[in-house]
């Protein structure tokens, strides 16, 4: 069983991907690490930055090994530089 989920891109990640988001079909048991592999296969240019990025599921940063569960929105967050 898999659902359509949106992955949001920001800053240099969006610039490298050439878009602000991508939608894919993922199951609740799939880990963030599996999403990372999928994203990299679609956007190989993200190799430049992805190791320093954090992943968030429904607005909380999560570890790579975590299953995405029923989370509907995922974000790939490069190192921050606000202020």
């Amino acid at each position, binding site marked *: 069983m898999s659902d359509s989920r949106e992955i*949001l891109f*920001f*800053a*240099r990640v*969006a*610039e490298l991907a050439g878009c602000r988001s991508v939608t894919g079909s993922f199951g609740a048991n799939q880990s963030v690490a599996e999403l990372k592999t999928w994203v990299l296969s679609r956007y190989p240019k993200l190799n430049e*930055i992805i190791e*320093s990025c*954090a992943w*968030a599921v429904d*607005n*909380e*940063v*999560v*570890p790579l090994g975590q299953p995405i569960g029923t989370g509907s929105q995922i*974000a790939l*967050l*490069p*190192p*921050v*530089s*606000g*202020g």
Partner: protein
Amino acid sequence: MAKLSRDPISPEMALGLGGPGASASEAEGLGECGARVVFEGVVRRKTGDLETVALEYDCHEPMALIAMERIEQEAIVRFRLKKALVVHRLGRLEVGETSIVSIVESAHRAEAFAGCAWLMDEFKKRVPIWKKDIGPQSETWQHPTQGILKPRP
């Protein structure tokens, strides 16, 4: 209370926001605060040899507001502040414009200075906002290693 704004920001507009955190201007807070520290971050033209024409800010808005409010609450507890408030600007900012306003109020100045400095340090490490440095020749997103986000403990 935290806020993101696409319009220009200032300490005056930030103070007018009020909200929870016992403002000195609110009746119950009157008389308790002897100190208010206001920090404004502004767009700098020169960083070493590099010249900035403008900055452009990108943001994960729901996550940024959550992170900003957590940091404010942590600062209030840690430094026994009466109030902590952060407002950040988004979009394109020219040199000299204000990118962030951080205001804390407390009984005495020592905790207000310390609390405001801590709040800014935490902000720069934890809030999902990104700046692109727009120079005369090129544009570069800033992704410093100290800005790598981590899951909450």
